[in-house]
């Protein structure tokens, strides 16, 4: 057996890594819950950021992209990796262009660009309204090419159950075939986790049904650290659904959409719940419509920045119980606009609403609510600083000013160093959304696709070098004793047997995995999203304790030994609880507000105490997180106040929203 690398996850990050590593001549075993072409990356709509020639000639630079990303993330990201990512971005676009991605074109045939949140320059490349899908397909095609040549072996419909760790080093994985239910160990000299986010911890989110976070949880429970778990991005406008929350672009507000709930105005000017809150909105008279954004923010009205919109909508529904029909939803109303105009400006996105809700937003107000969208936190990873190390951090870059450095490979991170994006467990790497690096406390729109590709293409070489020069070069996995593998399989088999033996004909909500997951989602959404407070978070931890106890006694409704989805689901629910716990504990202990993390009891950013990475270490004794705040890298840009989002009374125009999709 030659040296092998296992990649877990077949989204953008996993496929980019597979292609890069296979190209270097190593054999790749690629594991995915679904055929890789169906990974969650397909859901990314907006685009991918990179400095480009047009923007460059207008004064933009890779350095400014770096600065925007650090600033957007409220300075919580280690800065050197972000610099390297921004420097690499243009070459990543070029590569995907060569792979045949149908990027939108200008009339002269160059790649078209659009303006996106967090920047004053057009730096976002896009392919229709499905950029993520198109990027994923390009890599899927390249992977298929290597598969045809025998360099990549796919294990689709296989679920990752845990890393096999021997002498402190990841030497393979245990996985289960979701069809035959066979559990087996796979040897590998390195394991790359590229398993995405954890939206399902919140029950419903904008994430795909496979984004449970269970794979990351299994690494975390095996000793990998989890960084900044509390940093969860919530998108203000999503379409509520009983199965998932689908994104509604912010451009609906930009085109005049008004946000309101039915209400009754009291003599003192306050609003109370409407007695017929669920009535047909067209029957609610104008004076019984509470346009709360317009009332609270007269200057900006409905186009307040996204974090404010998110918090206010949340407040109206969760704290005041004034959501439409008593549910967590408000109206986003475009019906006062000319339908002809709406069809021209917003046709595509309104069609999505109509397809999934059944109502035409041109004639009926949309019902929307904020939704968990992206996890900035994830498995904690390391890096080797590159060559750019100013004697002291620079002040924030002025948009359009000359960049202090011309971009070159290796300024941010030392290319090919084996610890780049390696977790604290030797040989265990984390790429893409499951990696906590790059986005700090808040991600900018159109930077997610970039970080996935960058990890795979840049740090893929670190994996290659680790096999060449690191521990596997002296003790390859193929020569290791079989015991650690056998033990891991046995442990997983025991867990499965216990679950199968729990099967009961009477699915009591107490121990029903679906009920436990539902309650988990409701609790996490209420306590650990938009508005957090110590009191509420403590209540959340108590609830999580109850759920953990119930999950340990979970009972299935299906004991099939063939294609037992209930088994896989219940196991994921159990593991999601450890991520939920880390999110809640991180949220409690970060006593400040930063980026997506907002504490009512600590509304200001506190750099003196919390300009640090939250590191969650799994404590097997308490089956919960031990939280520590670790020093981080802010040696390139001095932290500045993050002011966009602040209402500027002198200007009619708001700063661009921080993120779009």
């Amino acid at each position, binding site marked *: 057996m030659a040296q092998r690398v296992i990649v877990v996850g077949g989204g953008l990050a996993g496929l980019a890594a597979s292609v890069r590593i296979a190209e270097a001549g190593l054999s790749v075993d690629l594991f995915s819950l679904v055929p890789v072409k169906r990974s969650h990356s397909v859901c990314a709509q907006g685009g991918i950021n990179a400095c480009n020639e047009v923007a460059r000639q207008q004064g933009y630079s890779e350095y400014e992209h770096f600065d925007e990303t650090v600033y957007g993330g409220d300075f919580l990201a280690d800065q050197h990796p972000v610099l390297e990512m921004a420097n690499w971005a243009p070459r990543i676009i070029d590569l995907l262009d060569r792979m*045949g991605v149908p990027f939108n074109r*200008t009339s002269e045939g160059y790649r078209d660009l659009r303006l996106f949140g967090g920047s004053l320059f057009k730096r976002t490349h896009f392919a229709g309204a499905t950029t993520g899908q198109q990027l994923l397909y390009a890599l899927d095609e390249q992977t298929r090419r290597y598969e045809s040549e025998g360099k990549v072996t796919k294990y689709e419909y296989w679920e990752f159950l845990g890393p096999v760790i021997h002498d402190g080093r990841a030497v393979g994985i245990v996985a289960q075939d979701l069809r035959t239910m066979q559990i087996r160990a796979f040897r590998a000299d390195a394991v790359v986790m590229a398993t995405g986010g954890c939206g399902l911890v919140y029950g419903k989110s904008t994430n*795909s049904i*496979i984004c449970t976070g269970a794979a990351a949880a299994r690494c975390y429970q095996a000793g990998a650290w989890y960084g900044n778990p509390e940093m969860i991005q919530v998108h203000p406008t999503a379409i509520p659904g*009983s199965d998932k929350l689908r994104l509604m672009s912010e451009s609906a507000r930009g085109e005049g959409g008004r946000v309101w709930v039915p209400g009754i105005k009291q003599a003192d000017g306050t609003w109370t719940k409407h007695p017929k809150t669920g009535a047909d909105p067209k029957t609610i008279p104008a004076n019984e419509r509470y346009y709360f954004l317009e009332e609270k923010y007269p200057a900006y009205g409905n186009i307040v920045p996204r974090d404010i919109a998110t918090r206010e909508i949340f407040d109206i529904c969760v704290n005041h119980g004034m959501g439409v029909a008593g549910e967590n939803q408000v109206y986003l109303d475009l019906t006062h606009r000319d339908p002809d105009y709406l069809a021209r400006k917003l046709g595509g996105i309104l069609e999505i609403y109509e397809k999934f809700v059944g109502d035409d937003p041109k004639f009926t107000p949309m019902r929307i609510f904020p939704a968990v969208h992206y996890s900035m936190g994830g498995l904690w990873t390391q890096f080797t600083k590159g060559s750019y190390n100013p004697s002291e951090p620079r002040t924030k870059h002025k948009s359009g000013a000359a960049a202090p450095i011309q971009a070159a490979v290796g300024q941010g991170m030392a290319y090919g160093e084996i610890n780049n994006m390696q977790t604290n467990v030797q040989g265990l790497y984390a790429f893409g959304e499951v990696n906590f690096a790059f986005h700090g406390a808040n991600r900018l729109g159109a930077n997610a696709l970039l970080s996935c590709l960058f990890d795979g293409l840049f740090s893929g070489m670190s994996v290659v070098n680790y096999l060449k020069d690191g521990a596997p070069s002296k003790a390859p996995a193929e020569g290791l004793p079989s015991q650690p593998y056998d033990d891991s399989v046995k442990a997983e088999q025991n867990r499965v047997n216990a679950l199968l033996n729990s099967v009961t004909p009477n699915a009591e909500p107490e121990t029903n995995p679906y009920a436990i997951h539902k309650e988990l989602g409701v609790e996490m959404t209420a306590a650990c999203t938009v508005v957090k407070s110590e009191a509420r978070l403590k209540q959340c931890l108590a609830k999580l304790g109850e759920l953990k106890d119930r999950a340990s006694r979970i009972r299935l*409704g*299906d004991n099939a030994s063939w294609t037992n989805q209930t088994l896989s689901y219940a196991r994921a629910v159990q593991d999601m609880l450890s991520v939920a716990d880390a999110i809640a504990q991180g949220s409690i202990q970060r006593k400040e507000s930063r980026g997506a993390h907002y504490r009512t009891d600590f509304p200001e950013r506190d750099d003196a105490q919390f300009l640090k990475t939250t590191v969650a270490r799994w404590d097997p004794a308490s089956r919960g997180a031990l939280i520590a705040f670790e020093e981080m890298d802010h040696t390139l840009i001095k932290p500045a106040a993050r002011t966009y989002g602040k209402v500027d009374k002198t200007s009619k125009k708001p700063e661009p929203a921080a993120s779009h999709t």
Partner: protein
Amino acid sequence: MITSLTNAPAGPHAKELAQRAANRRNAKVGRTVMVKVQRCDGPGKASRWETFKVTTERGMNVISALQQIAGNPVTTDGKKTTPVVWNSGCLEEVCGACTMVINGKVRQSCSCLLDDYAPNEGDTITLEPMSKFPIIRDLWVDRERLFHNLRRVKAWVPIDGTYNLGPGPREHPKDQEIRYKMSECMSCGCCLEACPQFNLEADESKWDTSFIGAHAINQARLFNMHATGKELAMERLDALMGPGGVSDCGNAQNCVKVCPKSIPLTESIAAMGRAVTLASFTKFFRS
């Protein structure tokens, strides 16, 4: 895109769409809908029907109906059973995972609203697995052959590797629009389910000589249009020339009618048919 400003849909499915819109307006939240599911415990096992009662919620789709059933899987006869097994992913109709046959027609179940198909109290909606692929369990089928056929036509751009070699070829926006449309294919398999020439084939050794399918022919055209992708044009045409190639298409035109992304599949088949004919003449005169 929304092309019409009234509520009245246009196009070939106008009548059906108008009926669904009417259904949607009349449907009441909280009614009971019967979900009739064709179930099968695994390959080689007999199929059976089970019917479940679902209480509708606002905007409920087939996925959330199946989720509701999974929480407490009891049939209308009061029989306790197992949760239905099915495949799903994005739930936004971009991943293709949740394709199944609903009321006799293949489509994605995520974008299938109960209000459209079962608007009245007590209405039944019928779910069956796709019939052209081997069954795994219940509504989950194994579509590996679909991806295999993408390998047959070498559906990729043969790049020189991932090194930094500058941008790809420039492209006219009109060409980009055509390629983008074709590239939206999510490999869901609707076109294959509806195709009279594409049949269930469990024997993998026969895949290379059985009809390749509209989706793969479309991908061959997509990559033959790309400046670098063209490099493999002859190999793709070779794959489409032999048994199971483009000439096996019986021109039923069902594929284009069921494609959820409105990909011009019949245009692709016609274009590749012409290209194959031309290539075989060239070959004939060269040999």
